[in-house]
């Protein structure tokens, strides 16, 4: 087993300065934590106003943020938006992996909007994937079943099925994810963000995910 994680890709639909919910600050502290542990971090994210590649300095030393816009202008729904923007996230991630000559150790995706790109990259490059689920569609919408919400649930399921490890923040969330998506309990791990040693706990999951 390789013991050293050299490069991690973080896939998220929001990252500072574009903050929509709590995933953006979460990913920022995750990236900073990983960078302090000497991991090269490439954050791949969406931003319609700040496309391009930014190398971090100061607190963000070691973090490169890659931002893409969605080339499709009016999307008919969040679902079709995520599925088209996802192809652009995939392009940025693929460019990172090619520039690193294939030496990327793990893809860490956050919530369903990042899942399509992450599972496709996992198949294309055979790089292990870790998925953090911050909430599930059933948490957000309740037990409402429409074709639209089921499509998002299927994407969430695909992510939990493909991922080498699924990360959640509480025991309750762990139970919910296991029950809803019928994945083995041993694949789902509770890591409380911000708690002492949480980055080490994630690095352990990264290492175990590697071939």
């Amino acid at each position, binding site marked *: 087993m390789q013991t050293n994680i050299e490069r991690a890709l973080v896939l998220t639909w929001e990252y500072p300065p574009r903050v929509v919910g709590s995933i953006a600050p979460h990913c920022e502290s995750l990236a900073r934590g990983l960078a302090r542990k000497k991991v090269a971090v490439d954050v791949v994210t969406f931003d319609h106003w700040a496309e391009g590649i930014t190398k971090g300095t100061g607190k963000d030393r070691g973090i490169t943020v890659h931002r893409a816009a969605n080339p499709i202008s009016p999307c008919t729904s969040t679902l079709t938006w995520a599925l088209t923007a996802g*192809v652009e996230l995939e392009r940025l991630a693929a460019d990172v992996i*090619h520039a690193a000559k294939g030496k990327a150790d793990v893809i860490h995706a956050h919530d369903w909007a990042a899942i399509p790109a992450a599972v496709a990259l996992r198949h294309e490059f055979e790089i292990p994937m870790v998925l953090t689920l911050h909430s599930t569609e059933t948490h957000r919408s309740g037990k409402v079943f429409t074709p639209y919400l089921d499509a998002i649930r299927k994407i969430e399921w695909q992510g939990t099925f493909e991922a*080498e490890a699924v990360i959640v923040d509480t025991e309750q969330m762990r139970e919910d994810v296991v029950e809803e998506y019928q994945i083995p309990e041993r694949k789902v791990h509770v890591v409380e963000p911000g708690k002492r040693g949480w980055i080490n706990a994630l690095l352990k999951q990264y290492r175990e995910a590697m071939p």
Partner: protein
Amino acid sequence: MSPAKKAAPKQRKTAKKRDRPLTVLHLCWEYPPRSVGGLAAHVHDLSRALVKKDIEVHVVTCGFPGTKDYEHYENVHVHRFDAYTIPSEDFLGWALQMNLYKRMKAADVIQNLDGEVDIIHAHDWLSGPAAIALKNAFRIPLVSTIHATEHGRRQGIHDPFQQMIHDIEGWLSYNSWRVIVCSKYMETEVSNVFGQPRDKLDIIPNGVDYKKFDLEFDANAIKSQFAMPHERIVLYVGRMVHEKGLGVLVGSIPRVLESCPDAKFVLVGSGYMKSKVKQLAWDIGVGDKTLIPGYLDEEVLLGLYNVADVAVFPSLYEPFGIVALEGMAARTPTVVTDTGGLGEIVDHDETGVKVWVNNSESLAWGISHVLKDPALSKKLGKQGRHKVEKVYNWEVIADQTIDVYRRVLAEYKKGDWQPGFKPGIR
């Protein structure tokens, strides 16, 4: 091995050497036996023709209940994935999710070939997102064929749903090394609506399997199903939808009957305008001279193409117009409107007759022009068939397509975009 690995097993890829021909991966959403529009037949015919030229062809397409995950069908490798259980509220949501599963499947296909795929060839927007993602991941050059555009199909873009499809078409064109279109008309359209430079576009026409029109059949038995022995059949084949110009066709019937009272109009096909067309024919008093037989077996249809005295295709919009080739292949004089690809297929008074678009009087003139002149009719039939054999022949089309592949590969090998490693292969 960690437990997580057991939960989602992945196939192991081994790198082994193999002698190989030029290998092409086609991405299309429909492929026989599933056929919704003309795309399935096109990709199937092109693939078979490429295989005959020693190209290795893999097709990744949607699977549906009853189809096989993999088959080696007429020397084409066909790979299918489950596109049937995708939940979705509309076609776009389905199509975009389908493209995720399509690229996951295609990635496995490419890796099982040790990454040795030379060209990815995508057909229309329904394979766009998968093609773009695969190109970027594997760094294999992408060629696409734009068969028709949303802008053309809808005569403009009118709502966000259409705009999304339109944008995906543009996105695919932008990401393609070269774009193949089927006519000069489509070259102009793709260049104008997607802002693509013309020197990036290649015109390669569609083809027709003309040999299937040379069948043995009982002419009287076929004709008697549709017309009286003295009547002369004016045949239309195609979907019964607005853009095919059926209203114009029915409008021309009275004027044709003035000069050729024996004409009988046989309109084959179905679509939302079918009952309207029938009603219109009775309303203007030519119902007894119009027959709408509905679905026909292929054998009967091929016979009907042969016994018809004139074939007529009065489309208002037509990117190519493959039906005109069918009329010409059957040696039946063909009358078309001078629009889109149709106007390019037919040379006036040489391989057919061209008339004004959306003009019943002009169309009536064209039909009578052929019916009244047996010598012209014979000449048009003969020369039409000759043109089909020479130009719209799958063997010729395969050669032209291979030229595009070779050109792209030559440019690709000179550049610095080639991958430094084979993705997914250890």
